[in-house]
């Protein structure tokens, strides 16, 4: 691009480069505070159970033990991360109450002088649990009689009265009836860990002025601060969150799991408290990318135009939904793909199971839709006898096309991007494909080709 810009558009050296290559960059867990206590969590050994009793008396006798925190110690123990933007209901427990809903759920926070003492005390907390039946499959969870994970009686997140996020454009059934082919597919993906090299963690430090400084690797400082303020029922101005440099996030550090409990522990002990996930906790307890099951049904004309697409998606939210309800909406907004399809019906379900909770991850709700849609496109191409390039050009959206969620497409450049990819790999596109542009249909004399 030839704009008269000085700095934008130039590959300047990273401003954090020297810090990173010398190791001088300070990450959250690099703060070492004198007198720092260590927090380790007693976690549920079962996927689903009723809590009959928790006995910390042996743990309290471990040398170096300082404090045990249970649900009763947390001022506003039931919360939901997205409550900040009005999402309801409050559904997750900072520390488990009455039931545990996934293996690894936080039950008792142990604070001790050393990590070793904390581990030893954790091992000496006795749990009295009554195991309950658990459910791990999204469609099993929706069947009558399935174990109920939530506290409201069914296993779906409710979207304004619907058990799923709906998108409707045109008349899918009528279009299926006149389609030459129906192409159906079921796509499954399994949960994925963010695996940042720096695990999630924070250090909460009581300050002289009655405030608490929290060094954290959250991806969203105010999100963490505001949720901590709600959970601990303290004014936000009592909290000072410091971070901004994150050792890999990928969405995993948008949750607010470590800060509230570490800050509470700092309040209760008046000592700095460090709570940093072990790698095993990061993998087995922290949120993952949801597993998805996506049913696609497409109505296609003999010449390869997709005239109807029906999508039924289930995201396995795990025991608590965190950011996943939002992912379903983003999924629903994008589940038809970068294609112009006049009749679309999307039902996207956020389903609770007894699995570790899920949340945001890079590509939030879209990555797995793209997998399903783009494999489906190849199946359609094969069925109608077109090559994989042509089928995509034929159906690509243009500026001004109406998307299923009824926003007109703008900044559409799929066609140009595919042309560039073909050129990159030396694939010779047919002249008509080479000549296409994403400009609004009807201009440049281009045929819309819609049936």
């Amino acid at each position, binding site marked *: *691009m030839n704009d008269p*810009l000085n*700095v934008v*558009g*130039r*590959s*300047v050296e*990273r401003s954090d480069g020297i810090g990173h290559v010398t190791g001088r960059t300070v990450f959250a867990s690099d703060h070492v505070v004198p007198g720092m206590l260590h927090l380790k969590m007693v976690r549920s050994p079962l*996927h689903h159970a009723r809590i009959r009793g928790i006995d910390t008396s042996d743990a309290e006798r471990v040398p170096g033990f300082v404090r045990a925190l249970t649900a009763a110690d947390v001022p506003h123990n039931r919360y939901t991360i997205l409550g900040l*933007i009005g999402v309801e209901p409050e559904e997750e427990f900072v520390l488990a109450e009455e039931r545990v809903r996934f293996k690894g759920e936080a039950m008792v926070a142990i604070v001790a002088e050393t990590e070793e003492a904390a581990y030893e005390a954790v091992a000496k907390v006795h749990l009295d649990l009554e195991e309950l039946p658990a459910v*791990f499959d*999204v469609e099993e969870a929706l069947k009558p009689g399935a174990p109920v994970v939530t506290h409201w009686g069914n296993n779906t997140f409710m979207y304004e009265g619907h058990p799923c996020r*709906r*998108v409707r454009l045109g008349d899918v059934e009528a279009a299926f009836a006149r389609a030459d082919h129906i192409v159906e597919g079921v796509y*499954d*993906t*399994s*949960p994925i860990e963010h*695996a940042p090299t720096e695990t999630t963690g924070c250090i909460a430090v009581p300050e002289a002025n009655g405030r608490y400084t929290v060094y954290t690797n*959250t991806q*969203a*400082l*105010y*999100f963490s601060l505001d949720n901590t303020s709600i959970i601990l029922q303290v004014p936000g101005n009592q*909290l*000072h969150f*410091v*971070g*901004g440099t*994150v050792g890999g*996030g990928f969405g995993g550090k948008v949750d607010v799991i470590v800060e509230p409990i570490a800050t509470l522990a700092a309040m209760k002990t008046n000592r700095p408290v460090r709570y940093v996930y072990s790698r095993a906790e990061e993998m087995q307890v922290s949120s993952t990318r949801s*597993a998805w099951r996506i049913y696609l049904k497409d109505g296609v004309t003999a010449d390869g135009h997709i005239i109807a697409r029906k999508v039924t998606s289930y995201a396995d939210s795990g025991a608590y939904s965190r950011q996943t309800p939002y992912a379903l909406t*983003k999924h629903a*907004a994008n589940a038809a*793909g*970068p294609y112009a399809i006049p009749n679309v019906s999307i039902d996207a379900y956020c389903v609770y199971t007894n699995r*570790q909770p899920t949340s945001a991850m*890079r*590509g*939030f709700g*879209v990555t797995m839709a*793209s*997998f*399903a*849609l*783009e*494999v489906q496109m*190849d199946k359609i191409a094969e069925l109608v006898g077109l090559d994989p390039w042509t089928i*995509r050009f034929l159906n690509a*959206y243009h500026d001004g096309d109406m998307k299923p969620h*009824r*926003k007109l*497409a*703008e*900044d559409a450049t799929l066609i140009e*991007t*595919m042309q*560039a*990819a073909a050129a*990159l790999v030396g694939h010779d596109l047919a002249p008509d494909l080479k000549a296409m542009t994403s400009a609004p249909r009807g201009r440049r004399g281009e045929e819309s080709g819609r049936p």
Partner: protein
Amino acid sequence: MTKLRGTGIAAVNYPTGMNLGGDPSQALIHATTSGSFVVSLSATDLGQGLKTVIGQIAAETLGVEFTEIVVDTADTDTGPHDMGTFASRATHRVGNAVIAAALEARQALLEVASEELEAAVDELVFDGHCNLMVKGVPARSVKVADIAALAQFKYGRTIAGRGSFMKPKSTVDPETGAMDPDSTEAHACTVADVEVDTETGEVRVLSIRSAYEVGRQVNPALVQGQIAGGAWMGMSHALYETTAPYYPAPDHSPKDFSEYLMPGPLELPEIECVVLEMPSSNGPYGVKGIGEMTANSPIPAIVNAIYHATGVRIDSLPVTPEKILRGLDAKRATPS
């Protein structure tokens, strides 16, 4: 031992930002006495290079050198509110906020310079290298650093700016799903080449070649970094990663990097890309978001390439060697 090769493609779009709750970012800028500028944010840098690109956008807007900008992402006491770094939103949202803040600071700078140079504000221009001059009269020029010092010691003025950008909340129609969820769309098309060992089901990804359209690139090297890292992550998602290897069964969940499989340096394919720049209408200097999308198109491209190589369709991720081998067995058992 037979090895089969195949090629697959995939094309995707990806939205920038998400605003179902309102999506604000804010920025503050102030000049130090030496004429460098501090940008205060509460947005975070995950490694994608936010501090660098925001520094570039601030420098561009202020008309000073990039090296004069300090970006602080550290602190809720000093950084104004920001939703956070996710949804491919940071460069777009924070960039717009920083432009607004920089324009305000720039105006303050111009007003002081106008007094000092005894020229009207609209007669003044920046040379992009930390000097202000009267248009067409290079002799009547003053350093930004000097203006910053004069502002504070002679004129008693602040050189500062506040900036905010918010995509207003869009409510979703519960019946039709009508909504305005994002600001713009970036695009990608990936071509993957694979080789499959028909005895073991092992997939070797030979190359991942992509075209991207990401609006304006603020820093092309950082864009390339996202594309290369995302290609690797996409390959990793396609073939290796899972916290539940036998999903939906919860058994054998990994606890370390031995069990949680991700490709290492020895699995690295050839990664190549070309980047188109078609500026967005609402991003800072035409930016679109690229942070998240780079893992997306490689996944179906690889899965489609495996089908092309073997004739086996695998519709569940990750595509393990066992799934391919069982598919090949089934295909051998029922010759078409």
